[in-house]
């Protein structure tokens, strides 16, 4: 997870999404694949869809959105979750 590269994502509303009690079902039109997302991934996709960002920038915006303090641990978790989203093809780096 390169620290300074910027991550991109399509705008979140471009995806048909169905909310269930525990997860969100997201249909990714570009790949034709369906993903089941647990929090905080939907929030991360919403933020990146609004504006590409580095891990650091995204961590700051995500902590603000969830109303939690930002720390090194949050940064590491966001980095790891970005790897998962990248492997699924939902985010990419320029």
């Amino acid at each position: 997870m390169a620290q300074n590269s910027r991550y991109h994502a399509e705008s979140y509303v471009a995806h048909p999404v169905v909310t269930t009690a525990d997860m969100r079902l997201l249909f990714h039109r570009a790949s034709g694949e369906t993903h089941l997302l647990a929090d905080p991934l939907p929030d991360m996709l919403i933020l990146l869809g609004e504006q590409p960002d580095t891990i650091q920038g995204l961590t700051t915006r995500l902590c603000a959105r969830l109303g939690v303090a930002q720390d090194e641990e949050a940064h590491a978790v966001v980095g790891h979750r970005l790897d998962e989203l990248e492997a699924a093809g939902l985010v990419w780096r320029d």
Partner: protein
Amino acid sequence: MRDALPLVRALTDPASVDHIMPDDWTALLSIARAERLIGSLAVRLKERDLPVSVMEALEAARVQAAFDHVQARWEVELTRRLLAPLGIRPILLKGSAFVVAGLAAGEGRMVGDLDILLPADQLNKAEAALLVGGYEWAKDDPYTQAYYRRWMHELPPLIHAERGTMIDVHHTILPLTARPTPDAPALVADAVDIAPGLATLSPADMIVHAACHLIADGDMAGGLRNLWDIDRLVRDFSRQANFWPMLAERSGVHQMREPVARTLRLTHQLYETPVDHAVAGHTRASDALFVRRLLSRDGWGRQTNRATRLAFYIRSHWMRMPPLMLARHLWIKARS
């Protein structure tokens, strides 16, 4: 239904299906599926007034074609994401090129594996990136690996471990053992950008490659589909200025004059494609053999004319490699 001619007629002249008997519809659908042209037939018959069950069968083919196109575009995008950071711009070939470039030849077309062409000096870098990116060799036994690298126009096929999709990385468009030697650097030089980090061959080279793939590199299996590609491409591109002189010139550059001429005669005869007869040349007696091979399908969708097919099978191997090597190749394959 004796052969695949009714399918050729339905594609060429959709009105020809207006008074087909129910039983002939059943045979036509089986032949179209066997020749992998059901999607193209669905596009051509979209406006016709058809029996309900035929409409539903063609609608199913449209759903499949739409899914194929999403898969094809996504494979191209994932490959672009792997190669772009290395400054490699893949030149898309065949089905993926038609679909991503939005050509008529792509409409309703089933797209199989992803084929890309790269300059020879970028092959190793691309191969390393693909292997790191989750691809594995489809066949990694030493004979196959050595054979491809030494004699073939492409790397051994790679399959993505997770997605199960296959990619063929070419450095030219004919096996090195074949007699004609297409000008690979010229193919790369004339390639056309279609999107950031993606290209296709030039219009003329695209047709030369399609003719090469149909006539000079195979046993004509799936020939009706490849010929339909050529019909669509020629009708699309021949509207451009000096298309025919450019095609004649590129056929010469790639030592493909005869296969291109043959292909133009065949598509003119079967799909009534308007062609420049100076480039297509005079009808040959042997053209009828190619037509017979192309139409070798019965009303049940089964292949027919076993002898003709065997002749083309032997011809395809003989073209790809000199006799001595052919014997050794078949001997090793028989034992493995």
